[in-house]
């Protein structure tokens, strides 16, 4: 093929592409998207923007602080954003305040090809369309584990043993890292560990807390053994910090978000030796449990209630275009997509293995957010050794009760 005909062909392809996309068959409408900021969401927003033109506008605000913005932005009438990409935890405040609309009609009209497993239904109504899965799981350095003479750990007890072996062999002083920053991150680690030990956060059928028990103590003790293998600065470690120390080769095992896999396995920010020896495996089980001590998350989009039907329809069509098989194909390695046509990659191995292990999803309960906040604020002192596990859990329960009373969940 000559250069000229190649050029004509690609020009034709671009032309066809644009005509096929412009407006996405819509007559008009304004779409504005709020969402978290990482590679996969960026790809979805770019895909949605292909629908711009012919009277349709598509804007996006991708921001890691989207959780703090979403409720206020959607409470306004008309809402500041027409569509939000959210998760099974972040959707709860939106559901609590009735800020998002059921999507059944829009799916019947524009989303016939979406698969059943993508639909997030609450009480029979589809409230969100999921497009990717995420979970925290184990990242390991095969070379260091081999040098210490241990195999890839499958339980947290093995993680702790392996960490001690690596330390004793003088390979690394602080072999383990996880997102243990005081606040949301640390609470998330407790949630993982507590569910892994088989606990449930509330007394059945009520909003009464249920963490100050043997399971809670066991979960906290496991966490304490783990942070003893972490850098003493562990209470300041968020995902960015853990990824950075992984890429610097400072740790041999890390419990970290699957969505970080792509960043860690790419050829930026680290050496070929570290990347080549990094393996992504399932989250470990703990305390003889059978399911990994982690939680499954979906990321999906929702459409605001307080917008006109025209804008809502345009937003839905644009978002569906954003998660089309073409977008997924072009960004295959950016996430564990729940969309047809996704090919599993090394970066997704950990999430897939964790999901197949039967891990529970993060609880989508109205008052779980309050429990999460209370745990994040009250568990630090136990890890620092200034109070007992029972006291820390009692404090967390008391703090939760005060918040739940104020929010009307408890009397």
């Amino acid at each position, binding site marked *: 093929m000559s250069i000229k005909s190649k050029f004509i062909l690609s020009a034709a392809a671009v032309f066809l592409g644009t005509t096929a996309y412009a407006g996405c068959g819509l007559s008009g409408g304004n779409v504005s998207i709020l969402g978290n900021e990482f590679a996969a969401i960026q790809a979805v927003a770019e895909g949605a923007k292909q629908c711009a033109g012919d009277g349709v506008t598509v804007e996006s605000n991708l921001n890691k602080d989207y959780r703090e913005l979403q409720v206020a932005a959607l409470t306004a009438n008309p809402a500041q954003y027409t569509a939000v990409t959210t998760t099974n935890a972040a959707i709860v405040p939106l559901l*609590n305040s009735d800020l998002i609309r059921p999507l059944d009609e829009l799916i019947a009209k524009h989303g016939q090809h979406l698969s059943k497993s993508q639909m997030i239904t609450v009480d029979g109504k589809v409230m969100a369309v999921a497009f990717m899965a995420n979970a925290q799981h184990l990242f390991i350095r095969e070379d260091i584990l081999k040098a210490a003479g241990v195999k890839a750990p499958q339980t947290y007890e093995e993680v702790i043993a392996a960490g001690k072996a690596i330390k004793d062999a003088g390979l690394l002083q602080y072999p383990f890292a996880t997102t243990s920053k005081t606040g949301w991150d640390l609470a998330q680690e407790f949630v993982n560990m507590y569910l892994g030990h088989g606990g449930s956060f509330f007394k059945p059928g009520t*909003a009464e807390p249920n963490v100050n028990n043997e399971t809670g103590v066991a979960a906290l003790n496991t966490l304490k053994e783990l942070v003893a293998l972490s850098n003493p600065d562990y209470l*300041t470690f968020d995902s960015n910090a853990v990824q950075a120390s992984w890429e610097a080769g400072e740790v041999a095992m890390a419990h970290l978000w699957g969505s970080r896999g792509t960043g860690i396995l790419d050829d930026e920010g680290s050496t070929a030796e570290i990347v080549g020896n990094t393996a992504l495996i399932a989250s470990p089980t703990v305390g003889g449990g059978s399911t990994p001590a982690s939680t499954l998350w979906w990321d999906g989009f929702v459409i605001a209630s307080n917008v006109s039907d025209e804008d809502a329809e345009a937003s839905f069509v644009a978002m569906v275009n954003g998660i089309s098989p073409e977008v997924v194909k072009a960004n295959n390695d950016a996430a564990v997509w729940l969309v047809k046509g996704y090919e599993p990659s090394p970066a997704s191995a950990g999430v897939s293995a964790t999901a197949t292990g039967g891990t529970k999803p993060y609880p*989508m309960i*109205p008052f779980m*957010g309050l429990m999460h906040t209370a745990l994040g604020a009250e568990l630090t002192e136990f890890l620092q050794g200034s*109070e007992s596990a029972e006291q820390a859990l009692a404090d967390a329960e008391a703090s939760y009760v005060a*918040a739940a009373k104020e*929010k009307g969940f408890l009397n």
Partner: protein
Amino acid sequence: MRHKTFFWFILPSLAAMILFIALPLVSVVIQSLHIEHEQVIVTTENCGPFGCTEESSVDTEATAALRAEQPLGRFAGLTTYFDRGHLATAEVAEAWRSRDGLGGFFSALYNLPFYKALAFTLTYTFLVTPLVIVLGLMIALGVNRLTPVLKGPTIFVSLLPMIITPLIGSLILFWMIDAQGVIGKTLQWLFDDPDLSLKASPVLTWITLMVYGVWSSAPFAFVVFYAGLQTVNSDSIEAAMIDGATRWQRIRYVVIPHLTPLVVFISLIQLMDNFRVFEPIVGFSAQANATSLSYIIFADMRSDITRFNSAAATSVLTVIGVAILLSPVLVRTWRDFKGKAA
């Protein structure tokens, strides 16, 4: 000035103060006296990519009806002020009853979020404020003695900590004091302790935050004192010199008395500012070891479920705290004023 002229003169700022200070304060007080409606909880079947589960969810229609009836929420009086997240009266009383010596009582008190934050806030305020004043005065006296060529550049460099946005300044220092950072590594080398970490222990975190506080506020005191120094009467200084006063005596008996009103001014501003300490805690990710009243408000507003009522109560308590702190200075100023009028 005639009363009418004065009224028209002050009207714009008075209107702005009512609009931007008084009304928000009233709104905060009202919010702090309410709590949210009872949430109507139903059990629903929720399905997703990971299967179906029976879970609680909010009956939004029923809750919306309650909300429409009483838009402000349920009136709760002062209950929010006395709950565990704030003054925690019940918990404090219990800690006092079952106390194990005074130390045991204080450690039980320190376990409550409000008192924990108050402990750091007050320590910070009462250590940083005097240090800022002393350091600012020392810099001002030093700069005042420099030759004119050096004065400009020195003043510029001394002002830098104040020019840098607090959040950015603390973030930069946060990275520098990291165990891998330039300050962190130097300290490890100086103290010959490879495990030394400024972020890990509560005591070192407090010291770090306070050093940061002095570093960032000293330029403010310096500028004010430096301006004051330019107004010191040179005749008195010369007279003191003829009487054989040393430099220290001249500072102690001539300069410092002249600057006293400025000390009052700087303490007022610094007490208010330091009581609201916030940015360094976020910048240094220090919330594990040190929280302040402002940080508690921030945490209430930034979680998944925002707690406006709780944040409002903490805000009102902060305002009361500032008022108590400033009262000695204000009473003194009022007495001076009355004395002059009489």
